[in-house]
């Protein structure tokens, strides 16, 4: 009876994931039966499936909002956890997925990608992402990472006729498999040392070991093992965050992936893995943090510099966005490597703001569709003279670029300020902060170039084409995120206090 009650409790806590899983399966079944019907002449279900899944995701969002706002509740014998921290991350992930699906539908309808399976894959990926955030156990973590990545590999290669897309899928698959291997190695090392997969038990074990390692040789050895395992796990997470040097594959993959899914690729995994990283740091590896600091410092520095310098040479918009996201990841890691509550608050705040900014960026990218042949923007020079072709898009793109630079009257500044503020608390990081500063001036250079292209450049034959009217979903999204970028700076209070509450929960 006891077991039964806890099982039901688990259902209650994980209702979002279960709901998404069931609705996805139902959609898949519906699609599989209906699309093969000879009676209906093999209908294309993309439209109906997409709108139903939008509905399903919205319901999931509402369910997430109704989840208990509590400190640590465990589900399914401590395999998953639900607390305000994970709920917040889930909210952001669901918002991100919802908006990337909304961005994607019109794109999918117009393209030759009219298969409803893509949408169901997207839903499965969302399921994986949500499970990553809620997992409290290394096995569930690994399995959910796999669910998410497998869907992503297929989505990356979904444009079957395009060489770029196939290349992207293959590269993503090979490197993703490699990083999964590293995760497995890390997990098994941690298991060797601590004898458990559970985050909390591992934390106790590591605490115990670091106390005992003074006298006992075996404890010291185990501690080393644990450190090595943590190191591997961290590397595999950095792979997923595509922090340089573990993310050099990202530009190729993102470029080849159909634009509709690139938004999803940028937002969801990043938010989820930062969430899981923070959770691992706070719950399990707090005592081992010093050994990770070096790695984080190295990655963050490289990401900042490569992100800034690499983007200077890019001509394609998507590659440019990937490089810029690398430098954003650099900033997020800066917050993490400070290793204090303040730093983690800064990093979390930055991730949330980053999610909004990149949603805006991709909505904008897919809105710039030219009339003829639904040709979407590929090169940065295609943006030229946007200010004459569509004023609203030009304005919102300038606000976007400026908030990506992190200049004051827009939301980007809040994140950057929080990260710098936490980094300045640690005086040993001062040289690093100076470098971060210089790299942010460098990034400013190419954002300004984009603004220049949008506003100051002249017409040429290619850009003379008029733009298509922006669709309803994308216009709504652009409007919401634009307001956030514009007005978020003036009252960041609620956002900051939200992040502070959920992060402090893990420390007390």
């Amino acid at each position: 009876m006891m077991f039964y009650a806890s099982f039901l409790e688990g259902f209650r806590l994980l209702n979002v994931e279960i709901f998404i899983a069931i609705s996805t399966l139902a959609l898949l079944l519906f699609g599989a039966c209906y699309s093969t019907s000879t009676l209906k002449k093999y209908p294309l279900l993309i439209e109906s499936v997409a709108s139903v899944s939008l509905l399903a995701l919205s319901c999931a969002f509402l369910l997430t909002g109704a989840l208990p706002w509590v400190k640590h509740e465990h589900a399914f014998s401590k395999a998953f956890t639900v607390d305000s921290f994970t709920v917040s991350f889930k909210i952001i992930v669901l918002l991100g997925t919802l908006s990337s699906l909304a961005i994607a539908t019109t794109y999918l309808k117009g393209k030759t990608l009219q298969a409803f399976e893509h949408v169901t894959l997207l839903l499965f990926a969302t399921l994986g992402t949500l499970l990553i955030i809620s997992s409290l156990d290394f096995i569930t973590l690994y399995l959910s990472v796999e669910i998410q990545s497998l869907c992503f590999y297929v989505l990356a290669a979904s444009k079957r006729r395009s060489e770029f897309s196939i290349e992207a899928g293959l590269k993503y698959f090979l490197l993703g498999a490699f990083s999964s291997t590293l995760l497995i190695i890390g997990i098994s090392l941690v298991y060797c040392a601590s004898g458990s997969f559970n985050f909390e038990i591992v934390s106790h074990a590591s605490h115990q070991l670091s106390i005992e390692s003074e006298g006992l040789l075996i404890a010291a050895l185990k501690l080393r093992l644990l450190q090595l395992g943590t190191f591997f796990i961290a590397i595999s997470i950095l792979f997923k965050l595509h922090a340089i040097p573990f993310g050099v594959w990202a530009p190729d993959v993102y470029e080849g992936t159909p634009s509709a899914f690139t938004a999803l690729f940028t937002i969801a995994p990043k938010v989820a893995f930062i969430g899981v990283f923070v959770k691992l740091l706070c719950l399990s590896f707090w005592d081992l943090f010093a050994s990770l600091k070096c790695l984080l410092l190295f990655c963050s520095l490289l990401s900042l510099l490569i992100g800034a310098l690499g983007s200077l040479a890019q001509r394609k918009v998507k590659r440019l966005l990937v490089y810029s996201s690398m430098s954003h990841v650099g900033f997020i890691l800066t917050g993490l490597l400070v290793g204090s509550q303040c730093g983690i608050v800064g990093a979390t705040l930055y991730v949330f703001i980053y999610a909004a900014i990149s949603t805006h960026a991709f909505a904008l990218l897919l809105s710039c569709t030219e009339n003829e042949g639904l040709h979407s923007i590929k090169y940065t020079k295609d943006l030229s003279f946007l200010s004459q072709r569509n004023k609203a898009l030009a304005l919102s793109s300038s606000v976007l670029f400026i908030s990506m630079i992190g200049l004051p009257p827009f939301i980007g500044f809040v994140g950057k300020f929080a990260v710098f503020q936490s980094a300045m608390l640690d005086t040993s990081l001062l040289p690093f902060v100076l470098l971060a500063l210089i790299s942010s001036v460098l990034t400013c250079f190419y954002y300004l170039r984009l603004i220049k292209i949008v506003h100051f450049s002249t017409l040429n034959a290619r850009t003379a084409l008029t733009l298509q009217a922006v669709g309803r979903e994308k216009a709504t999204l652009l409007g919401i995120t634009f307001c956030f970028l514009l007005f978020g700076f003036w009252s960041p209070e609620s956002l900051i206090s939200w992040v502070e509450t959920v992060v402090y929960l893990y420390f007390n």
Partner: protein
Amino acid sequence: MIVYLLPFLLLFPVFSAMCVALVPRHNTHTIRVLSFVSSLIVFIASLTALVAFDNKCEHFQFVTKIDWVYGSNVSFYLGIDGISLFFILLTTFLVPLCFLSGWKSVTKYVKEYCISFLLLETCVLGVFCTLDFLVFYFFFEALLLPMFALIGVFGARSRKIKAAYQFFLYTLLGSLLMLLALLVLYLQAGTSDYQVLLSLEISNRKQLLLWLALFVAFAVKVPLIPLHIWLPEAHVEAPTSGSVILAGVLLKLGAYGFLRFSIALFPFASEYFGPFIYVLCAVNIVYASLTALRMVDLKKIIAYSSIAHIGFVIIGLFSLNVQGIEGALLLMLSHGVVASGLFLCVGVLYDRTHTRLIHYYGGLVLTIPLFAFSFLVLIIGNISVPGTSSFVGESIVLFGMLQTSTPIAVVSAGSIVLGTAYSLWLYNRVVLGSLKRKYTLFFADLSRRECSILFPILFLTLFMGLCPGLFLKPMHLSVAKALRGGI
């Protein structure tokens, strides 16, 4: 009522920018009139600040505090003293003139032009009004954006884009260093309230580092010699009104920052780096004057003369006595008026002939005497002949400097001669001599609009030279307070 003055000054331009945004694009006349009238209203409102200002009070006046981020001790804390009072007046005085000067010459994107000017006004006033370091920082950075647009969109040539870039990147690098210094102070004090920061005990080593970080930020803005490259470019490429606001107000932001933050917060470091600053400024004055002599572009000559004058200002500030600082403040005001006037004169010529090269001008006095007269008064003001505003400023700066370092005072006094040289040379080439009919066939003297722009400026140049006491009186207590470290 008077409590709401400063929020009104900050918000009214934003409000009118919103109104301008609602006017249909083709209705350019309405847009111009609307923005001109609203900037006049701001000017009149700022005059009430002058009237209501209490000279005998050394505290900040018209103080308003609006909480911003709960729990972080950062708030929109507004207030002015004798130092910022005149900068606010200078800004609100120049903005209507800028609108007038662009009345005919700006024909494309009039709406964007007016909106960015109004937003720029808010940002500049914000910098002068605020008593919170963080808010100061964000106004300081935010004004980059409208200025970037003004140079990049409304400039004359294709080189304007390079100029806009340089302006942006130079200033951004400096201000990010300022952000670091600000964070250090914020973390030590737990607040970014300026008055609390004044009472902060900062160790000497920390003072030196912070001073250097702020120095880069402000020296870029001022600009001092190795960091000045962006200024002549920006001036040359900006439209007339952009140059006016750049020379008249934006250059003063750096000097204002030096006085408010570097000198008041870090007295030890300011004294320690004094000789460094003196040498830099002496080099600055001599180099800029000599460079001005070999320039052929009217705007570049005036830009370099601005750099030279600002060298005087910084020397005055870092002489660290009351005379030096008051002289510097007066010189800044005078330069704000005179340099703006000179740029407006160049704008008048440029509107007619569309060239700024000296080579094409000559003997203008024969055809356009009113212009020749106005230009003469401003050139005399630039030379700092007794009776004009710059004379008072420069002589008080030299008094102050003589108390601190005689050789530097001698060098800078000597370089006034260089200033005379390039100013007279400029006037002589453009206005005197024989008329060059080869290049220009038709001449038109100042129109009524241009007279109404230039004559207030001429009046102020002479008025400040004849009655400097009126301007110095409100400054005394505030300057003395800043020198004491604000306590």
